[in-house]
């Protein structure tokens, strides 16, 4: 039972719960930084195209039960003019955020997912998704989706949430 889903009878979204608890990211400090990691990206991009077998995922990124959303609590950018890993026009992507560890059902691996919020404009207001798996209270801010993570962006106004693959979980 996710309380915010039940808010509006208008919303026909049926949010299934998934249990995706394997693969726990340990060892990060108080905050994982998701953004502005330009030096990091060439590594990822260089590795991917050279891979003999293409990495795969499946599912509907507009559905709350999409595998990447295991720890999300917010409006899915996929429904707001963005995608699961990009922001709607006119917003900016937060640079600090919280993370979850979600299992990709296709390859069975646990990935670290960074839930970068898109900030600016106002709340998107649709595709509200509250999964909260391994979400922790404010004292574990690296894993807490109760915080307004637009903190630190030019705009502190929350619009929607993305779910970006930033690595494999250590303890797989």
């Amino acid at each position, binding site marked *: 039972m996710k309380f915010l889903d039940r808010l509006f009878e*208008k919303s*026909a*979204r049926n949010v299934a719960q998934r249990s995706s608890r394997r693969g726990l990211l340990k060892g*990060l*400090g*108080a*905050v*994982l*930084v*998701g*953004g*502005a*990691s330009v030096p*990091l*990206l060439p*590594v*990822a991009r260089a*590795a*991917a195209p050279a*891979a*003999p*077998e293409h*990495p*795969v995922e499946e599912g509907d990124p*507009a559905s709350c039960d999409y595998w990447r959303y295991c720890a999300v609590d917010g409006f899915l950018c996929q*429904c*707001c*003019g*963005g*995608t699961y*890993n*990009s*922001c*709607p*026009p*006119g917003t*900016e*992507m937060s640079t*600090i955020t919280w993370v979850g560890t979600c299992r*990709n059902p296709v*390859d*069975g*691996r646990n*990935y670290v997912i*960074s839930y*970068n919020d898109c900030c600016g*404009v*106002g*709340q*998107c*207001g*649709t595709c509200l998704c509250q999964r909260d798996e391994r979400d922790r209270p404010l004292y574990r801010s690296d894993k807490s989706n109760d915080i307004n993570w637009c903190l*630190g962006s030019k705009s502190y106004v929350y619009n929607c949430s993305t779910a*970006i*693959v*930033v*690595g*494999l*979980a*250590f303890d797989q």
Partner: protein
Amino acid sequence: MRSKFKQLGLGLALAAFAGVGQLALAAGKPDPLPIEEIGRIESLPASYPEDWVLVDEAAFFSMYGGKVIIMDIGEKEHPKRMKGTMSKAMLGSFTQSPKRGEYYIIESFHERGSRGKKFDVLVIYNKQTLEVQKEIMWPTDRLQSLPEKFSMAVSKDERFLYVANFNPAASFSVVDLETREIVDTIGTPGCVLTYPTGKRSVTSICSNGGLLTTVLDKNGKLKSRKRIKPFFDTDNTPIFERPVIVDGKAYFPSFKGLMHVVDLSGSVAKYRGSWDMLSDEQKAGNWRPGGLGLAGRDDKGHYYVIMHPDGAEGTQTHGGPEVWVYDLKKKKRIRTIAAPRWAVSIGVTRGKTPKLIVTNGEMNLDIFDATSGEFIQTVSDFGNITPLLIHKSY
């Protein structure tokens, strides 16, 4: 402090990634998903598809949060409908310049929510990125009301933007869209709104039942004023202040269904008489136009208006159960479209296969084929609370 955290995060993310290749190798599985780019922002096409509209969400229950929502109302899949949003605080007004690819929103703020100094700002947006291009602090009080299409307008050549003010003295300001500066603020005593007229004129509607045309010079400054004599009685035979403009003529229905025509194609407005929208039978049933954004047009120049039976004093703003379509040249109704969930405001998309968008009684959007009247779908759950005006896209 923040940069320190960034460094920490970056280092840890690199460490996390370092393990990827080894794991993949060990398992004999396909390579893992690559690390993805952070910071990607979507953008919109220079020319929007015909089915896209801009919804003025007045946010009547929380006016701080008003917005313009760009929606593809032809799209069948909910998650693909919303394309983007712009803020529009405290009953902000919206208009656009197709040629310039810009949107204009004038909105209001207090320094601290409902407290502190109040000020108005004109915001210029790029229509592809929805990024703010410029903010112009406003020198007076803009007209703040339920959404009105003609509280702002652009000149025919899209060089100037006109913005209505009301404090409660009425005026309008002229913004040069080349220089993005205010060039003049011109009083319109007893008259409000900015119907674009001719090349560089602005017509306003007056408390005496007449009109006032303000003629501007080539720089956008006041050149002359001309009052057009009253053609209706504001107490007894009121008209809606929300015309639809077709071929340079503005069509103003009265509360009781008399259509007044005003020619706005010249440098000064000219009253061109009226014609009756209703048959004797329709009059007997007290059919009347009514609603908020009650009328629209398609590219053929056909006129769409919300109608209700049993009209009486007070019903003029309440919407109705049907949309009637008129051929303006023939001054004749050519079809009716039933709005089974009520109609409060309407919009019509551009192009050869126009859609009729109806803000229904539940404040969702009912979409119809504007030509056949066939119901297509209801668009809801997009942050809509009071979507009171529908603008075409370009």
